[in-house]
C-alpha cells in the first residue's frame, strides 16, 4: 500500500484547495466596484497558485501561495466622489467580475467532483471490509 497518503487525503486536500480558491473569488467579488483615490492602493484581484503534491501513485493538490494579479485598475472621472484626487479621478478595483463568476462555477464543479470521488471510495472500502 502507498505511504502516508490515501485516497481520502487526495480528495480532502483537493477540496481544501478548491475552498481557498472559492474564498479568494469571494474576496475579489466583494471588492469589485470599490473606488480608491490612487492607483497604488486600488484593490487587485487575488489568485491562488495550485501545486501538485506527488507521493508514489497518488497526487494531491495544495495551495502554494495566493498572489495578486497584475491587472491594471481603471481610472474613472468622477469629481463628485469624495475619494477623487485633485484632477477628479478615482481608481476602480481591478476585478473582472465575469471571469470571477466563471471561476466560481469551475471551483464548485471541481469541489463536487472530489466529494463524489470520496463517496465512491468510501462505499467501495466499506463493501470490502464488510466482506461476508
Amino acid at each position, binding site marked *: 500500500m*502507498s505511504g502516508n497518503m*490515501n*485516497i481520502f487525503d*487526495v*480528495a480532502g*486536500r*483537493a477540496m481544501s484547495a*478548491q475552498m481557498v*480558491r472559492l474564498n479568494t473569488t469571494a474576496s475579489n467579488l466583494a471588492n469589485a466596484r470599490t473606488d480608491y483615490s490612487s492607483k497604488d492602493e486600488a484593490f487587485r484581484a487575488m489568485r491562488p497558485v*495550485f*501545486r*501538485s503534491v506527488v507521493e508514489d*501513485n*497518488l*497526487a*494531491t*493538490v495544495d495551495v502554494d501561495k495566493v498572489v495578486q494579479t497584475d491587472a491594471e485598475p481603471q481610472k474613472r472621472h468622477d469629481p463628485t466622489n469624495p475619494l477623487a484626487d485633485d484632477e477628479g479621478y478615482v481608481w476602480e478595483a481591478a476585478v473582472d467580475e465575469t471571469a470571477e463568476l466563471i471561476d466560481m462555477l*469551475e*471551483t464548485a*464543479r*471541481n469541489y463536487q*467532483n*472530489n466529494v463524489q*470521488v470520496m463517496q*465512491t*471510495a468510501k462505499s*467501495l472500502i466499506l*463493501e*470490502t471490509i464488510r*466482506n*461476508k
Partner: protein
Amino acid sequence: MPSLDQVLALNGGALKLRSQRLNMLASNIANASTPGYKAKDLDFDRAMQQAQNGSSIDQAMSDHTGYRVPLQPSLDGNTVELSVEQTLFAENAIQYRATLSFLQGQVSSIRRALKGE
C-alpha cells in the same frame, strides 16, 4: 491441490490493481485545475497479464503506468480532462465491485465446503 492463496490470487491481485487505478484516477480528478499537471493512468489489461505471469503486483503496476494523451491539450499544460477521468473513475469503480463480488463468491464457496452443507 492448490493452496488457498493460489485460489484467491487472481481476484485478490485484480482487486489491488483496481484500487491502485482508483487512486490514480482520484489523483487526476484532484489535480483537475493544477497548471502543468500530467494525468497518469494504469493499463489494467497489461498489468493484470504481467501479474498472472508471476510478476509482483507492484512491479506490474509500475511497468504499466503511463501518462494520458489528452484529446485536446490545454494552454496551461494540464492534461486532465474531467469528462474522461470521471467516466473512467465510474467504470473502474464498477469493475472493482465486480471483482469484489467474484471474490466474495469464492470465499462463500470455500466456507460452504468447510461447513459441509
